[in-house]
């Protein structure tokens, strides 16, 4: 168990850097985590992060890859509605890296 300091607040994270409490999340947390991994968050990254948070709010789970690609395709254009594009945005995998920035728990299982 560790903590990260975002905007003067100590937030608890697990061994892999995922937020322990969903409620601790602010956009600054995403910026902080991305910066820590050497990544800039563009508007397109935010589309993904915001969708993940909305979906999680409704379903208590991150969206399946096809649910995510479909939603992003609708928002950013059909040519971007595929996992290749999502991997360009989040090289460590949209499921894991984007979930982390969005403050969601890491997806578990055979994925």
């Amino acid at each position: 168990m560790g903590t990260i300091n975002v905007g003067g607040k100590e937030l608890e994270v697990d061994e892999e850097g995922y937020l322990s409490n969903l409620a601790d999340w602010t956009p600054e947390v995403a910026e902080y985590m991305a910066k820590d991994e050497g990544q800039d968050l563009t508007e397109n990254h935010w589309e993904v992060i915001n969708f993940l948070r909305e979906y999680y709010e409704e379903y208590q789970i991150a969206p399946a890859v096809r649910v995510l690609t479909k939603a992003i395709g609708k928002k950013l254009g059909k040519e971007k509605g595929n996992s290749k594009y999502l991997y360009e945005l989040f090289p460590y995998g949209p499921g894991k890296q984007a979930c982390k920035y969005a403050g969601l728990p890491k997806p578990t299982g055979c994925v």
Partner: protein
Amino acid sequence: MADFETPELREYPIIPKLKEGVMEHSKPYVAKVQFQEALGFPGELVDNWEEKALEKLDDLRGRYRSLQVYLDSCVKCGACTDKCHYYLGTSDPKNMPVARQDLLRQVYRRYRTFAGKYFPKLVGAKDLTKDVLDDWYSYFHQCSQCRRCSVYCPYGIDTAEISMAAREIMDTIGVGQKYCNEIIGKAATVGNNLGLPEPALADTLEGLEEEVEEDTGVPVKFPLDQKGAEILLVTPSADFFAEPHVDGLIGYAKVFHEAGVSWTMSSYASEAANFGMFIGSYENMRNLSLRIRKAAEDLGVKRIVFGECGHAWRVAYSFLNTLAGPFDFLDPNYPVPQHICEFTYDLIQKDKLKFDKSENDHMTLTFHDSCNVARASRMGDKAGGQFDIPRAIIRAACNNFVDMPADAIGEATFCCGGGGGLLTDDLMELRVKGAQPRMEAYKRVVEDNGVTNVAAICAICKSQFTKVLPYYGFGMTDIVSVHQLVSEALILSDAPSDDTESNAEAEA
């Protein structure tokens, strides 16, 4: 991220020189108190852990005659030493199967054999100390329980069972692995390893129905919790969630559609994978299996079919009947349970499926035999069916198929490197290094035969390949599901004629 070197791929496999202790640091995260307790294990290391560990060892020796035989019968012939992919990929001698077994055997000898009690040094017997426990935690989480070594052992000693026993002992004294135990907890409460609740599952399946209809013009259904359906499909939850898994699921749905049978999935038992096996816990394995039985009874199905999942099939094929049977309420005219590959193969044999193989002409395929299917189960009614049936399906759906070298397929198949409860990011170094023998075999057919893709029938293999292929210079999308190939080539007989389809495409 990862701070290690990816092993080189050579033209021919070479047995590596020993590098003692190079993987001693590899340890997965330890399960937190709440995950341990949810499974009925102590939250953390208990005070009298040495005593408790020996008690559990005795319990397991009493329960499983095989374990007792394996502990007693090794003659140190060395046949297994160069057979483990983790040894080949890491050079650590403790990853030789015999050395891994000895981590448990040395303790058994010290406390439970005459020679070990009185002449410990002569027989390699050792006290159970914290160092030994640390070695257990490290090296019993460097075994994917793939059973390759057992094929070459003249006594048939199965290191997988020893690893399972060791993990069960560790859980019993409060030292569990985070990845497996957190997942078992989710499967036992939500119904699947992902923790995908019913509304999310329903939404995901609805999306797939739309996608397939857009794509083919045919309303292929993905039914959930449909009472009175003939078949219950139990599939790994990765099939709902990840790629290329989901393309396999689409393939199953198309096959069911074309076969004209009624089928359903269950939100209560929305998981085929059974991680209870990885931690050697009969109770947890049974608990998860009973969910499948309950779902089958509640939905009133007549048959159970399992999707593409390696160790799920081992549990289903080898243990389901004793764990959760008898299944006398199912139709005895079909195998209980049946593998989706058996289901599809049967239809192909009866000439009930039509394929346009040219749909897969952009690929040259090879097939990765998943360890638990290859060495711990079977398919069909002939020996070797688990090797022939998936290949027959690929050949029915594709024009271009080439096998990898003979010492890397069939019963000699190499694990993908992520099986047995090791498919977790905290073990990435082990996973990449353990994949080396498989990658070497794959490279051979890529270079010699122009192979472009590798198909598999296991959710773990698919996820592991997606992750490790790029480390070796291959594309992450080289890995495909077997039923993805079926999905691409299968001709749906109620599809709109070519004209209307191209019209639909033009409109879209």
